[in-house]
């Protein structure tokens, strides 16, 4: 990107943020497949609106379209923050329909699912460059966070000057290692949680209000 274009975009973003306090911030929930993004989006949406965002599954790429839940109002310390939650498909650089065959899926269904997944990832990348005001990056804290996709995605988010919170999810599991996640991205705040069990959600909402309010 050219220097002037980058400077212009950066100033434009700053101005947008200064004068758009009345509008809800669009917060993208990003991360690799199966990190628990939809479980988190549903937890937030149910806690504050009573509705869910979308179906959850242990099969990768259950979310194949970016889904938005608008006007989620989170109250913290006497203040309220209004956000639009954008639950995005798990980002990856490869999709092989054969991996879905291991989940008792017929070939036609697996091919269709993989095609939808690729469209969803492309859409998620587009959202990230154009349409989000902040990012919650969700990681499965039982998995190694030092992956290429995580490194690239965090780099892309940083290059967009977007505020980002790292959520170390699945702390209810025995293999959870929150410190490993915090060590991988020391430049960002890491918040431990279990979206499934609803553990540590007070801190989660506090940080959302602090970062995106």
């Amino acid at each position, binding site marked *: *990107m050219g220097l002037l274009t980058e400077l212009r975009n950066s100033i434009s973003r700053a101005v947008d943020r200064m004068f758009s306090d009345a509008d809800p911030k669009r917060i993208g929930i990003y991360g690799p497949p199966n990190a628990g993004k939809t479980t988190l989006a549903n937890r937030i949406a149910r806690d504050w609106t009573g509705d869910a965002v979308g179906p959850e599954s242990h099969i990768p790429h259950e979310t194949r379209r970016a889904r938005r839940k608008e006007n989620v109002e989170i109250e913290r310390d006497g203040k309220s923050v209004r956000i639009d939650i954008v639950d995005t498909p798990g980002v*990856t650089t490869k999709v092989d329909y054969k991996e879905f065959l291991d989940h008792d899926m017929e070939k036609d269904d697996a091919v269709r699912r993989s095609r939808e997944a690729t469209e969803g990832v492309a859409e998620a*990348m587009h959202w990230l460059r154009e349409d989000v005001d902040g990012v919650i990056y969700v990681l499965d804290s039982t998995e190694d966070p030092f992956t290429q996709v995580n490194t690239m995605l965090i780099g892309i988010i940083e290059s967009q000057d977007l505020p980002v919170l790292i959520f170390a999810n699945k702390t209810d599991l025995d293999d959870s290692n929150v410190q490993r996640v915090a060590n991988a991205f020391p430049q960002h705040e890491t918040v431990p949680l279990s979206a499934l069990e609803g553990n540590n959600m007070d801190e989660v909402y506090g940080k959302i209000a602090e970062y995106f309010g």
Partner: protein
Amino acid sequence: MPEVTPGETDDGVQIDLISGARMEGLTSMEKIRLILDGVREGNIVVLEEGLSPDEESKLIEVTMTEISPDEFNGIEIETYPQSGTQKQGLLDRLIGTASPKKLTVIGPANQIETLHKDENLISALVSRK
């Protein structure tokens, strides 16, 4: 050394080492096309200076649009982790201290497997088609 045409490399794996100078004059989409055309032919592409975050984002997006069952499963991409992965602000980028220069290895997902990666070493296993 005599030059070999692509048709003569069927029993091997072609590795394209692309210099920073070769990439310098290209637009983002030209870089992405250069990479993906090579990878889709089964080549391993090594970039001397890597891509910017914006270009990496577009590379993922374009890769997704080109995935086709039984034909192309996507890419494996590896770069050294940025040391310290420190956030760099606009000023850093303006004065050029946030250069994306980082050796990057890209290959077809079904032919390249990363065995080990740390800040100083990328070890990958490359197989034939």
